[in-house]
């Protein structure tokens, strides 16, 4: 319970910072809009059947791009102010740091989804089932974003703490998140087609979320600071 409370406090602190300058919300929101316009220009001439195939890819590719941008920025702030070290020596659980950062990233991604999904509805008539089944769409969007965030936060934090180059984040992130994004793409297509396998895909996505979240929480401390001999050696 303490970890969850600490995570919420850390996330609230980041959100408060974000509310002051709106840097992440505005840049990620604008980026979502630009990606949407670019995809719209590329695929607006497609017929309805082809749109059903294109829309899932557009949605989750946009999430992949925006997620990488958000994750880089979230830890850049800590790096620029040199507060990551302060955060690590503060009396908070390491898991709470992970959960706090993951929560902020998730909220930003969901905010971007609030631009992307209505944008797709506006640009592509085949996206209409997203509006007629808002509950199913919300579940899909949340589960897909959790899968991306859970892995992304672990590696973005590790890269920030090791002073690594941000270009490596994309190298790591895309192969690792593609299985989840792939299931999300298939589930989105099932939603648009009204396929009965849609709930089964949601369950698969939830299972991926659970595995990546547990693994990321378990590895977070080791990746960030090292444990035992590995921490002493460095």
């Amino acid at each position: 319970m303490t970890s969850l409370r600490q995570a919420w406090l850390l996330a609230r602190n980041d959100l408060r910072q974000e509310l002051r300058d709106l840097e992440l919300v505005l840049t990620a929101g604008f980026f979502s809009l630009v990606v949407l316009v670019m995809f719209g220009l590329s695929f607006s001439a497609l017929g309805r059947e082809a749109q059903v195939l294109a829309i899932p890819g557009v949605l989750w590719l946009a999430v992949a791009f925006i997620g990488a941008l958000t994750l880089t920025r979230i830890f850049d702030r800590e790096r620029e102010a040199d507060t990551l070290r302060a955060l690590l020596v503060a009396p908070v659980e390491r898991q709470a740091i992970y959960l706090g950062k993951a929560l902020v990233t998730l909220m930003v991604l969901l905010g971007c989804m609030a631009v992307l999904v209505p944008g797709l509805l506006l640009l592509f008539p085949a996206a209409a089932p997203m509006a007629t089944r808002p509950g199913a769409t919300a579940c899909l969007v949340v589960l897909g974003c959790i899968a991306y965030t859970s892995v992304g936060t672990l590696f973005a934090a590790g890269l920030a703490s090791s002073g690594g180059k941000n270009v490596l984040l994309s190298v790591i992130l895309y192969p690792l998140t593609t299985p989840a994004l792939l299931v999300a793409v298939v589930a989105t297509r099932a939603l648009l087609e009204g396929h009965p396998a849609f709930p089964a895909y949601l369950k698969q996505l939830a299972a991926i979320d659970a595995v990546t979240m547990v693994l990321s929480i378990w590895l977070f401390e080791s990746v960030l600071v090292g444990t035992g001999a590995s921490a002493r050696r460095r």
Partner: protein
Amino acid sequence: MARRLPTVFLVAAAFIFPYCVQRIFLHTPIEREMGTAQKIFYFHVPLAWLMMAFAIVAGIAAGIQLRRGSLRAEATALAAAEIVLLTGIGVLVTGPIWGHATWGHAWTWDARQVTTGLHWLIFAAYLLVRRYGAAGSDRLAAALAIFGAVNVPIIYYAVKIWKTTHPSNEVVGSLPAEMWASLWPALIALALLSIALLLVRLRQELTDIALDEAWIRLNERGEA
């Protein structure tokens, strides 16, 4: 003896491999439905097994590296990841050749193909992080290797979870005895070659680490 182990394995593989090629092409019956294209199975399947086995080795070694800070485990994870990359190339080349002959398409976006391709990308990313990451990114790479190892059961069960055109896992178990008799030598030859390469790379990495530490000690003594 331990120093000579890679040489012993390489020599053994050099003798077994020509024997297994001769066995596969001259003494194993041609499969009724797929014809001679099925011969690639004797290389594809052992390579896939080795790719998955070495991914698990890399994942376990990376876990030990993270928990205990063991340099030997770190070197083992790196060497095993390189073998995953090599055997992965073998799997991803032989698979589409077989697919082209039997399905008519080299790449069908089958779940087993996709998960194997992603698996290869994860280990390629691992080696990129090891090569170009800043100090401390070895821990990051280790986490990547663990995620790669977790991907192994997903590859294995991909044909059960999703609808695929790839043959099921039970195909290997249902092989007639004469086909098994050809599969074993291929597996042994490729396994010996992979283990020999792993041992060579492991020794190189440990020497590299020892040289680094000697250099640091020398500098510290110079400063003192």
